[in-house]
């Protein structure tokens, strides 16, 4: 007995090969699973409870997957709806799904799984010692917890299995681990636990574990002893190297993967090529941990930002860009104190020199300013209000345009690419939790809601 899982791509909205999906459906999978979220694009999406991807693209892809599901009458799971997996994003995808169901004439049982947590509940858990820091966690206190704009807990397989047991056709989950979405069904049907989790990790980015990552579609077959992985696109292959290398991807530890309720240990996993395109893996272990814990994610408001961009083309200034930028910050800091009565700790003014060290900062060691044709001057101002950030940008404006390197030289005029020179970037957010929380039961706090449409 095996469980076959079709994974169309690493995330809804990223695209997949329609031909590869068609090929995958011919293999009679038991379920279609896809992830919808990540923290990888930064704290803004969780901070604002919004999605990174285009609604129109997601709708097109989701429609294809709903049709694929209907063809085989198998369950379809979307994990971490709308990038951040907040409750409103689950409802947003639910509305999209009901709309598409009407358009396609489908009658469906839809399960929604909510994973958002209330600040006061997290505060209580924190005071009760139920929240533990993970490695490199930021400092935490009750006041900080109260300020988070959104907190989500990453669901494990159990809430998903509850929805599968209720015979949901489509499961729309809030924040889940990428792997839980895929591991839920094979674990429910008694397949090898290590293989279920390990196979899920290998398949969670779709065809990333193959020679053709952009084609998306992967077929995972889990049984009582191990799993087999096979790409669905014509010409794509999985090799022991491409599959085992995926354990390194976005994992701090390549051998141990912490999941809700336990961890996966792949140190003894054996990867074998079954043929030119399929890889068989056995020997991975799942180790249950007690008590059951889930990881938490949260973001909070970190101020309001206004940015400016100028371009330096003058060789004299290119050669002395750092000195010039430091002088500009010093003058503007003094002016801000004089004119607005603000201390530097009350706001943040940064200059990033594009063409010098904008990407690497203090890690940059290559000096290229003598060769650069031009340098971009990116000014970032963050303050407690948008109005204040923009007021500071107006104060910076004349210096950014005209500041001479020394007092006894002509005033330069740099290139401003647009008017106004400043852009209001709005609210910005920061991640605040790298912690896990002890649960009384694996479904504690994850609400499953069923609807028939």
């Amino acid at each position, binding site marked *: 007995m095996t469980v076959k899982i079709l994974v169309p791509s690493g995330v809804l909205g990223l695209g997949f090969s329609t031909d590869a999906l068609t090929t995958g459906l011919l293999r009679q999978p038991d379920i279609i699973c896809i992830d919808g979220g990540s923290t990888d694009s930064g704290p803004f999406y969780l901070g604002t409870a919004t999605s990174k991807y285009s609604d129109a693209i997601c709708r097109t892809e989701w429609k294809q997957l709903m049709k694929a599901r209907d063809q085989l009458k198998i369950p379809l799971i979307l994990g971490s709806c709308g990038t951040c997996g907040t409750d409103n994003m689950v409802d947003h995808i639910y509305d999209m799904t009901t709309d598409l169901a009407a358009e396609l004439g489908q009658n469906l049982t839809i399960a929604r799984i909510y994973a958002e947590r209330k600040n006061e509940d997290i505060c209580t858990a924190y005071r009760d010692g139920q929240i533990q820091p993970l*490695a*490199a966690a*930021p400092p935490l206190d009750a006041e900080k917890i109260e300020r988070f704009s959104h907190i989500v807990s990453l669901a494990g397989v159990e809430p998903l299995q509850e929805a599968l047991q209720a015979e949901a056709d489509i499961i729309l989950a809030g924040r889940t681990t990428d792997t839980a979405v895929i591991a839920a069904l094979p674990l429910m049907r008694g397949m090898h636990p290590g293989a279920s989790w390990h196979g899920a990790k290998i398949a969670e980015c779709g065809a990333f574990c193959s020679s053709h990552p952009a084609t998306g579609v992967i077929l995972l077959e889990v049984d009582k002893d191990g799993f087999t992985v096979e790409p669905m696109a014509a010409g794509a292959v999985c090799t022991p190297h491409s599959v*085992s290398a995926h354990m390194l991807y*976005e994992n*701090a530890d390549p051998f141990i993967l912490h999941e809700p309720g336990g961890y996966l240990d792949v140190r003894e996993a054996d990867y074998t090529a079954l043929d030119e395109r399929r890889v068989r893996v056995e020997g991975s272990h799942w180790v249950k941990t007690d008590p059951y814990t889930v990881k938490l994610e949260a973001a909070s408001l970190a101020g309001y930002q206004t940015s400016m961009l100028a371009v330096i083309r003058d060789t004299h200034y290119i050669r002395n860009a750092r000195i010039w930028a430091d002088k500009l910050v010093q003058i503007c800091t003094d002016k801000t104190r004089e004119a607005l009565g603000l201390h530097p700790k009350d706001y943040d003014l940064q200059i990033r020199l594009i063409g010098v060290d904008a990407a*690497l900062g203090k*890690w940059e060691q290559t000096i290229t300013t003598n060769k650069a044709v031009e340098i971009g001057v990116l000014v970032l101002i963050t303050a407690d209000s948008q109005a204040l950030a923009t007021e500071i940008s107006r104060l910076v404006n004349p210096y950014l345009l005209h500041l001479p390197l020394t007092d006894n030289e002509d005033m330069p005029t740099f290139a401003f690419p647009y008017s106004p020179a400043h852009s209001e970037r709005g609210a910005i957010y920061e*991640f605040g939790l790298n912690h896990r929380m002890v649960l009384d039961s694996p479904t504690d706090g994850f609400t499953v809601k069923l609807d028939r449409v």
Partner: protein
Amino acid sequence: MTRLGDLDIKIRSKNAGPFWITADIFCQTSPVYDRLCASITEHLIAACLDVPADSIMRFEIEKLYVLKFSIPRPDIQGSRTDRDMHGAQLALRLAEIEIKD
């Protein structure tokens, strides 16, 4: 001295969650892998990136000829001071590490 990026290798780096960054050095041959295992230590990486050596996780993955490093992000992903949201430029800095011939 030889620049790491001039050897027969591929390097990639990426976030491992918002608080960690991880880099994988894929060696194409066993001699290159052995050479890097011997020369690229936590201390070398720590000195290069100005982070504490004891905060670095280092893995030798012989089956793949991969040397892997993970470090806590000095600037948390997306924080005001972060310059690279996805953490992929670290690989380019590591390629510039000089190792003894």
